[in-house]
Each structure stands twice: as structure tokens, then as C-alpha cells.
């Protein structure tokens, strides 16, 4: 169901290429930020050691690597993947946690500033879509656990047979 994935075959090229390294702002300016190391570890199956590192949150998502890349891939994908795994384990920065909670609860990252709107003579803000958003996300959750149950059942049947 709408799964994220990482293309290891393309990352293997990355580990030998490094063409975008010299244009990546974080590589140039943040000591210790080195996607090449991260990618080598992912390929070698050692991604765990990066989950608690600050580095994986230092990709600016500026998409320079993506634009430079002859594979149209970009090593930012490795960072996105590790961030997602870190978040699943609850290892994401506190601010990301707060942001996510707000998003999941209200469908927004903040509510329109009403007094200031009045001061600037702005019209009433249009209605948001929080209700429908929440319904949709509940549906997504239900679909996911349905899939998960199916997987478990299939596993169980397989175990019974053997």
C-alpha cells in the first residue's frame, strides 16, 4: 500500500560516482555530513548505526543531487529512507515529533492567525479540510492493518504446513 522504497541498484552506482558531492550544500558546509558513507553502510546492511545520527537530518532537501544525477536519482533518497526508519523507531528530533502530531491531529501545521488577519483587513480564511483528512487517514490505517493481518495469516498458514 503506497510503499516507500529505496533503489539499491541505483545507490550502488552512487557509491562509485559522487558527481553531486561537490555541489551538495551540506556536504560542503556541514562537517561530518557524507552521504557516501551512509550509502556504503546501507549497501553493506549496516544502516542501523545511522539511525541516531544527526547527519541523516542534515539533508536540506534542496534536490541539487537529484538534478545533477545522471541516473535521475540523487543521494538524498538514502537520507529520506533512514529518516523514515528512524521515525518508526521514535528516534526523530523532538521538533519533527511535534510537527507530525500537529499534522496528524489537524491536517495543518498551524491555524490561521485570526487577530492578525483582522488587523491586516484579510477576509475570513477558507474552511480547512480537517474532517475529511482525518477520515481519509483512518481509511489508510484500516487498509494497512488489513494488509498486515493478511500477511500474518499467510505466514501462519505457511508455518502450519511445515
Amino acid at each position, binding site marked *: 500500500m503506497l510503499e516507500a522504497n529505496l533503489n539499491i541498484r541505483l545507490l550502488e552506482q552512487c557509491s562509485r560516482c559522487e558527481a553531486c558531492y561537490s555541489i551538495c550544500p551540506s556536504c560542503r558546509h556541514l562537517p561530518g555530513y557524507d552521504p557516501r558513507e551512509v550509502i556504503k553502510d546501507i549497501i553493506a546492511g549496516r544502516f542501523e548505526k545511522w539511525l541516531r545520527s544527526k547527519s541523516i537530518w542534515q539533508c536540506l532537501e534542496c534536490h541539487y543531487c537529484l538534478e545533477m544525477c545522471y541516473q535521475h536519482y540523487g543521494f538524498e533518497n538514502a537520507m529520506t529512507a533512514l529518516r523514515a526508519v528512524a521515525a518508526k523507531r521514535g528516534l526523530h528530533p523532538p521538533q519533527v515529533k511535534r510537527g507530525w502530531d500537529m499534522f496528524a491531529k489537524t491536517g495543518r501545521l498551524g491555524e*490561521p492567525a485570526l487577530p492578525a488577519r483582522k488587523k491586516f483587513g484579510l477576509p475570513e480564511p477558507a474552511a480547512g479540510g480537517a474532517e475529511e483528512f482525518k*477520515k*481519509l487517514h483512518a481509511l489508510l490505517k484500516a487498509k494497512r492493518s488489513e494488509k498486515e493481518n493478511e500477511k500474518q495469516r499467510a505466514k501462519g498458514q505457511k508455518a502450519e504446513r511445515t
Partner: protein
Amino acid sequence: MKEFAVFWGCTIQTRFPFLEKSTRMVLKEFNLPFRDIDGFTCCPEKSLVNNVDHAAFTLTGARNVALVDEAGLDLVSPCTGCVSNLATVKSGLKADPREKGEVNALLKEVGREFTGIANLSHLVPFFHDAVGAHKIRQKIKRNFAGMKLAAHYGCHMIRPGYALRNDDPLDPKKFDNLMTALGAESLQFPTKLMCCGQGLDRVDQHDNALYFARLKLKELKAVGADALVLCCPSCFLQFDNNQFLMEKEGEKLGVPIIYFTELMGLALGFNAEELGMTAHRVDVTSFLQKWEAVSKMPLNGAGIDEAMNSAGALG
């Protein structure tokens, strides 16, 4: 021109309502067919939502696009992040029919459908392409001749290029062209296309965010920029708010930060106060004063015709 919905996004409406103000004033003055529609949520923000849950990112973005698809509108946003995120979702779904099917199966249960027919534009390329430099020049009352402006595109105005397809993602021209249309000199400088670095503030790395802000602001000082012009609330936060925080710590860089809609608004004859520019944290007075001063200067080429045609030794 096709009617369009404005996608304000969370940051402008939550933190910078004055940016909504100047945007509305400029859109109205150009008689552009814009509307507000009900039902939008957060775009959603990629660096937050996609990093945590890819499916939630795709589904939320698809629902927002479905709203304009159904209403038969295009979408324009004064926020680079919003457009980039929505366009990323849209092009992803258009390229992946299976994922589109999954998304639409869920959307159907709330009575919606993603088709992806609506055009999604950021305000700057929209002004460049749909309004045009010619019309802008006709409409403005004052220009910025004599001013040195540094345009900051903001990564997400132009990247990812495959999703936005609105300019050269590594060598964009449209924002520069608009500066020139407004009569200003659009400065070229080494960090011109470098990311603002605001993302680091969202992952609890404030010092690194300041490092990136400082890098560009110092360079702008060195090249003599009268202001940094941008059109993204996140970049605005980085250069206005964070510059202010540095000022408070005794590091005064003094680079006024001007939103594209404010620059346009000034050229249209509105004043800084009604455009909400007094709400900035970094003072814009030096920019306005210089503008007043250069406006009073004689026009380019003044006096040469007269000198050429005056009497002299040749009789």
C-alpha cells in the same frame, strides 16, 4: 486566463498574514481571476510528512490536488514548498498508475478523485509566464532603476525539475527576468542558488541554520545588495527572523528582506505600511530610503542629447 485557486499553505497563514495581504493586493491590482476554495489542508510538507510516512504524504497531496481538479481550477501558490510538494505528488501519481489506483480507491470513499489535470504554479513563474514582463512594465507606476537586488529563488520554486518543469532547475532565469522587468539590476553572486538552510531549524539544528543564513547574508553585504528578494515563507523565516535573532546577539548584517509581492506592490504604487512591510523583523527602511534617493536621481543618459545639440566651437 483560467481561474485559479490560491494555495496559501500553513506557514503564511499561521506566521505571516501580511504576506497574504500583499499577495492579495497584487493579484487584485492585476485583475487576475483568483479564488479561495474550502477544504485545503497542509500541502503536506515533504521534509516532515514524507520522512515519517510516505503514504500519508501522497494521499494528503493527492486530496489537495483533487480539490482543484474537481473545481476545474488551476492552482497558484506564493509558497515554493507547497507547489513543489503538490507537484511532486502529482507527477509521481501520473507516472505510477498502480499507486494512482490505490490513492483513488481511498479518495473515492470520501467522494473525491485525483485526475491531475490542474496546473500547479508558483507565483513567480506564474507572473513571468501568464502575466508577462510586458504587462508588468505597463502596469507599474514606479520602477526600481538604480537598485541592486539579489533574487533568491528558493530550491523548491524550481526543483525537482521533473515535477515542476517551469525553469532550468540548475540555471533559472525567470525571477531574474522579473527583477529586470521592474527596472532593477538582478545581482549575480556565488551563493545565488544555494539553499536557504531553513530546514535545519525544523530538525532542532538551529546553529547550522544560522550558519547557512550568515553565509548568504555576508556575501550579499559584500556585493552591495540593497535587498534580498524572495517568494517563500520558509526562506523568509530563515533570512528575516534568523537575521533578526543574529542582530539581537550583536551580529548586525542589515540586509532587508523583501517578498516578491511586496516589491511588486511598491512598484504598483502601494506604500510599505499598507503592504504590511512594517511587520518584518529586519528593518526595511534602508531599502526604502535608497529607493527614494535613486528615484530622485536624474534619468539615465540625462543631458547627453542636449550637450550634443548645443552650440560650440564648430559654430
